[in-house]
């Protein structure tokens, strides 16, 4: 396959969660979500309530992909940030390499503060993801997972109820 899979080790996951927690606090945001550009949620921190973050992640990736397409049409590489301001709730998205940092905030914060804090964190996140990509590519992650020895029967068993 063209892209390397992302393999997130437990320690990295907690490192990223801690970064998101810090950003949420510093930006007085409701929720911070880290999403892969292909639409998969990597980590989330904040007031989730009954918010469907899986759908949010997929739509955010679609949104970034669509605006990225528009950017290319007008001669830009991509739009590095996107903001959507609602009456009460707003969203700010930063594109950081292959991941998207999505911040949901309300009137306890402001777009300026969220932008500033997101930008401050983006270098740290980018650095962490360079490491994660290296680990994903070299760790032989799937063999560590035990996937190389997985049997046809185990795969078939997933489909028995269907």
């Amino acid at each position, binding site marked *: 396959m063209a892209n390397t899979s992302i*393999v997130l080790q437990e320690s990295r996951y907690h490192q990223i969660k801690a970064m998101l927690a810090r950003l949420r606090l510093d930006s007085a945001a409701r929720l911070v979500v880290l999403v*892969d550009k292909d*639409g998969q949620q990597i980590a989330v921190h904040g007031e989730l309530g009954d918010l*469907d973050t899986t*759908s949010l992640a997929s739509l955010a990736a679609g949104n970034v992909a669509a605006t990225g397409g528009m950017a290319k049409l007008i001669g830009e590489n991509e739009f590095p940030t996107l903001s959507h301001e609602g009456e009460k709730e707003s969203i700010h998205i930063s594109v950081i390499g292959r991941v998207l940092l999505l911040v949901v905030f309300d009137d306890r914060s402001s777009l300026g503060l969220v932008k500033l804090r997101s930008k401050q964190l983006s270098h740290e996140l980018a650095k962490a993801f360079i490491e994660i990509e290296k680990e994903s590519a070299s760790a032989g992650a*799937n063999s560590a*997972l035990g996937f190389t020895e997985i049997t046809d029967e185990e795969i078939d068993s997933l*489909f028995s109820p269907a």
Partner: protein
Amino acid sequence: MTFINYASREINCKIVYYGPGLCGKTTNLQYIYDSTAAQAKGKLISLATEADRTLFFDFMPLELGTVRGFKTRFHLYTVPGQVFYEASRKLILKGVDGVVFVADSQEERMDANIESLYNLEENLRAYGYELMKLPYVLQLNKRDLPNVIPSEELTAELQRKGEPVIEAVAATGAGVFDTLKAVAKQVLTELRKS
């Protein structure tokens, strides 16, 4: 592009349903959604026009079960089939782990099938993928209609690499889960190889 999270013990894969306009991609997803237990699925998101044609994509997450202690989650997407949505259709293929090509079996849609399949190969190539190397299933949909081309003929025309060919009537669910199973199995087998 598979995403493996050791902390939440999850494997996430992306499967895309591709095919010409009105071939039944959304109907496949709708049937899967309607027939899956609530705890195994998330919301079905449809970004559609007012006339219910897919504008950007449909999306639903589906949990199939546990392998070696890891939850397997499949993110199912459809693309907009209409020719003029080319730009957005291509975007959905990014990071794909497996593709289902939904062919419309009706005689008058044969050209549209061929054009869409050609378009799929081209768009995959733009991302550095090769259809020949990707988990892939060919679904022959709408087998219940009177004006369908015989399966053997459709297969001869559309099959690319000996991929599983599954006859379906997505509206009633016939063949829908067989298709999903065939592609998901290939995706998991691919994980084993890598």
